[in-house]
Structure formats: structure tokens, C-alpha cells
């Protein structure tokens, strides 16, 4: 110890100290930094299998090498074209294919959710691996960020939801209409991982909510809010789709006015 103390003013001491500090910082970073999930167990076989599947099922719109088909100017609303998938990432492929939105049956303004998914998990995994190999893009979220039951804060999520999501998906998360045949779908019965991936990747015309806009904790809180809201149910029973004034007005015009007219006829009839 004395020997060390005696040499602490040696010209090399500062350099040595810096080296040690750098090593400690680098080692700690390597140990603690979150690993990109895309790096997890992707094999070359998977990528080539994914490429084959992609060419068979996706290439007619997205191009043979996922380079995309540009629409004719002014024809964005119609026609068979797909954006480039370079940089789309695995999360995007998982969301689009596991919810049945892709491949689309026909080009149209909205890619609807389809419950009957034609691809196995392995096939989707392979296509995701292929698309992820084309360029860096958002990867699937860690399980930690999907644990809304354990760690989500639904109250905070509600504040975030009302600022960022409610205008399109409605305050009841029942969805709503957009322009020219597009719509924001309902969030009821959507898997937490798909809600997360939709925020992360911005499918179709939904804006992107990257981690700088809504951090992973924010996304988990939003999921907790949506899930808890739907778990609470509707104390009033018949929700009429939670669509607001259109369905409610139709209901009251038909049934409310019908009952009132019937009563008025009965009151006005002469007694027998």
C-alpha cells in the first residue's frame, strides 16, 4: 500500500487511472445496457426462409427485394403499391402479420384486422428476420414493457392516452373514422404486444410514437389504461359500439320516439 501511495504522483498514474475508469465504464455498460432484441437468435436459415416466403407472399406490392413500389403521383389512395420495408424492422412485421393485416387481400384505403392468420409463428418469425436483416428498424419489445398488470400505471397511462391516442381511437378506445375510408380500429381484445408495436412502428396512417415521444414506460402505462378500461366493462350494459352520438341518436329516435308515439296514441284513444 505504501509503495502504491509513493508512486501516486508518477507521470503514468493519471494515464493508468483513466484506463481503469474507461474499463469500468465500458464493462458496466456492456453488462447493464439493454441488448437489442433483434439480435436474439436469428439464423441465416431463418433469413433465407423468410426471403422465400417474402417473395411468394409480399413481393407483388413491396417489391422483390422489399424496395417498395412507388405510387403514381396523385394515385396514393388506390392501386397496388407498397412502401419499402428497408428499416421497417421486426416489430412492424410481427404487428402487421400476426393481426392478419398483411398480406392484404386487395389494395384499399384500410388494412383491416383479420382474425384468421394464415401464417404460422415460425413463418412470421422468418419473414421478420428477413426484413430486419435489410436495415436497422424497431425490434420486438422486451417482456418487461408488456407487463402492464405488474408494473403499468393506468392513471398515468390515461393522461398519456387522452393527449396522444384518444382523438383517433376515441376516449373509450372503440376506434373512429378517418378520411376517405380509413379508420382507427378499436383497441378492445388487441394483444398488449400489438398495441406496443403499433405505437412503435406507426402502421398504415397511424403516426409513429418512438421511444423519445412515448418512452417504453409510457407505452406500458398506455396499455395498462386501455386494458383496465376494457376489463372494467360497461356499467350501462348496451354500449351501442361506444360510437357516440350517431348510434345513440338512432337508437333514441327509433325506440324512444316509438314508445312516446305509442303512448300518445293510447292516451288519445277513447275508452271502451
Amino acid at each position, binding site marked *: 500500500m505504501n509503495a502504491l501511495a509513493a508512486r501516486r504522483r508518477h507521470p503514468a498514474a493519471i494515464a493508468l487511472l483513466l484506463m481503469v475508469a474507461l474499463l469500468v465504464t465500458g464493462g458496466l455498460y456492456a453488462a447493464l445496457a439493454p441488448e437489442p432484441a433483434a439480435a436474439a437468435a436469428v439464423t441465416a436459415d431463418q433469413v433465407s426462409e423468410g426471403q422465400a416466403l417474402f417473395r411468394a407472399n409480399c413481393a407483388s406490392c413491396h417489391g422483390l427485394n422489399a424496395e417498395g413500389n412507388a405510387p403514381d403521383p396523385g394515385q396514393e389512395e388506390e392501386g397496388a403499391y407498397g412502401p419499402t420495408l428497408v428499416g421497417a424492422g421486426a416489430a412492424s412485421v410481427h404487428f402487421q402479420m400476426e393481426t392478419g393485416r398483411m398480406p392484404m387481400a386487395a389494395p384499399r384505403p384500410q388494412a383491416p384486422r383479420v382474425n384468421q392468420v394464415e401464417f404460422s409463428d415460425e413463418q412470421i418469425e422468418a419473414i421478420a428476420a428477413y426484413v430486419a436483416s435489410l436495415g436497422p428498424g424497431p425490434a420486438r419489445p422486451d417482456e418487461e414493457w408488456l407487463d402492464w398488470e405488474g408494473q403499468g400505471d393506468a392513471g398515468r397511462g390515461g393522461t398519456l392516452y387522452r*393527449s396522444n391516442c384518444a382523438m383517433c381511437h376515441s376516449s373509450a378506445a372503440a376506434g373512429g373514422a378517418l378520411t376517405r375510408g380509413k379508420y382507427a380500429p378499436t383497441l378492445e381484445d388487441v394483444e398488449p404486444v400489438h398495441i406496443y408495436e403499433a405505437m412503435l412502428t406507426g402502421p398504415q396512417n397511424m403516426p409513429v410514437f418512438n421511444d*423519445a*415521444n412515448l418512452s417504453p414506460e409510457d407505452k406500458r402505462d398506455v396499455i395498462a389504461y386501455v386494458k383496465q378500461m376494457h376489463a372494467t366493462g*360497461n356499467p*350501462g*350494459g348496451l354500449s351501442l359500439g361506444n360510437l357516440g352520438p350517431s348510434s345513440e341518436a338512432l337508437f333514441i329516435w327509433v325506440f324512444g320516439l316509438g314508445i312516446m308515439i305509442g303512448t300518445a296514441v293510447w292516451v288519445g284513444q277513447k*275508452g271502451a
Partner: protein
Amino acid sequence: MADANHPSDYDADAYEREVGTAVSLDTGDHVGDGGLPERFENPGLPAHQPRMADLDDGAAKRAERQVATLFGISVVGTLGFLVAYFAVPTDARMFFPGLGDVSTSNFLLGVTLALSLLGIGAGAIHWAKTLMPDVEEIELRHPMRSAPEDREKFGDIVLGGGETAQLTRRPLLKYSMGGALGLFAIPLLVQLVGSLGPFDQPFRRLATTFWDGHEVDGDGNPIFVRPRLMRDPQNTPVRPEEVPIGSVFHIQPEGLLDLESHILEEKAKASVVLMRLNPSDFVSEKARDWGYEGIVAYSKICTHVGCPVGLYEQHTHHLLCPCHQSTFDVTDDCKVIFGPAKRALPQLKITVDDEGYLVADQPFQEPVGPSFWERERL
């Protein structure tokens, strides 16, 4: 002429002599002779038809029981309401066909209260239709004007009262009371008039937003401080590299939450949407120049009636207002392309500060939100 109040006086024979046979409307098709009477006589009210309960004592008894049953349903409903109120916990759920899962408490309270009210109403109407007298009666209207001696006496009382209260002898009382009553109207009028027109100018408050600055200089004008764009609701500043193409950020001005009061009023004017587009997508030079590397900020308050325009479609670059479907084209300086809005959304010119955060380069250059009469004068 036959008296309308006494249909039995109606002279059917005389009518027949003049215009031919009178026919009842429910006896099928009759061919007329095309002749018109000299004048149409008032046929009077149809003959009174007695009801079952008027003629048959059994029917009357039956009607009595029906009315009593309806009132009884109301009693059961009221008692059921009390039971449901105290016995059913508010978080209980039940399934009801056609309604799905409902709150048991809500459902039972609603149904029992409906029965208790409907029972009273239905019972009263059924009573009136079966048992209460249904003979048509006519009461003639009496003249409104009082008798001359009553009118004269009333005048004497009023004038005599004034005399005995010394109103005529002591004019000071008269004028001071009149002044007090007259001035009493002023507070009511001041409230109405004072908040209108040139006294208050409420539209001036619409001309500035929190982006203009909260502190005021000696002349009362706000001091612009280039506030940062903060995420709503996290209230954290935004760096341009955090905004990818296709994303939308909901923005409030820096310092808004430090206000001690009127935060929501200020937020309702100062809310902003921030989007990033590919710079080559812009049609409007001004829209691109007022942004920062493709990031543009626009007022979130619809120029139609002030709803938050938050629906951004990242591929079509349309901003849609959820209230009346006004649609704004972000590539063309948020020009209105559909719906009832009449003006483009005001753009907030943005840049970055020394620390690399997005800031407003100048306040809004026009009043945000819906149009109003004095807008052109600002």
C-alpha cells in the same frame, strides 16, 4: 241557426231540403249531385256514446281492478327500488339478454323506478278513460272587466293610501324612493353592458397566446422569450433528432404548468401539434421555411369552432378535426381541403436553441382558434 252547443237542435230535414241527403262518412261511396249549399251549417258535436263501464256494473268493477293493479305495480316498483338501493352493492354485475353485462344496481334501480312512475301514470290514464265522467261539457267565458263600482273603489283605496302615507305632503319621500329604485337597475345593466363592446374587448385576449410570453414589460406588452416546445403531458423538451418522419408530438409551451391559475384556458389557446415530414413533401415554401428540417408546428385549435385537431395521418399528411371533419393539408401550410373550417391552421415558426432543443422562433402571427367578428381588426 242551430246552436253548436246543442246538437239535438240540428235540423237535418231542413238541411236535406236544401242540399240533398246528408251522408255519414263511414257508409261507403256516395255519388253526389255536384250541388253546393248556400252556406255550410255547423253539424255540432257527435252524439255522446256511453262506455262499457257506464252501462255495465261488471265492466266498471273490472276497470276499477285494472286501475288498482296499475297503482299496485307502482307500489311494488317503489318498494323494489328501496330494496335494490340498500341491498345491491354498486360493483355487482349481471347478464341481461339483449343488454349484455350490466351493473346490477343500475339495472334494478332503473327498472323499479320506471315501474313506480309508469304505474302511477298508466293507472291515472286508465282511470280517466274508463271511470271518470267523459261527457263533453262547455263553460262559457266570463268578461274580464270588473264592475264599475269595484273599479272606482279600488282607485279610491290606492289614492287614499298614498294620501295617508303622506306621499303627497312630503315630496322628499317620493323623490328619494324613486331615486333609490332607479339606481338599483344600474348594477344589472352594468354587468350586461360592461362586458360588451369597447369597455372590455374580450377579443384582445384571443389575439395573444402563452407563446407570446407570460411576463409583461412596462407598457403591458408580453415579452417574448423563445419558449421551448414541451411534450404534453410529460412536460419535457423535444430535440429535433427525437422526432422521426411520420411521428406526431403533442406540444405545450414551456412554463405553462408553472402558472398559478388559468392553466387550462392558456393551454386551450397554446396547444400545438408537431410533425416531421420529408422536406421534399412540402408544397408550401413558407410551411417548410417556418419549420426546422421538415419538422413543422401548427396550432391544434380548429379554425372552425375550436376543437383539438389531433388526428394526423402520416402517409396522406392530413390533419383531421374529429368534431366536424375539417381536413387540413400539412404539406400545403395546413390549408383547408375539406369541411366547414374557413382558414388554414396558424403555423408556429420554430428553430432550435443553443442546447439543441426545439423552441418557438416567434409567437403565432395571427389569432388562433375560431373566427370572431373583430378578428380582422387585430
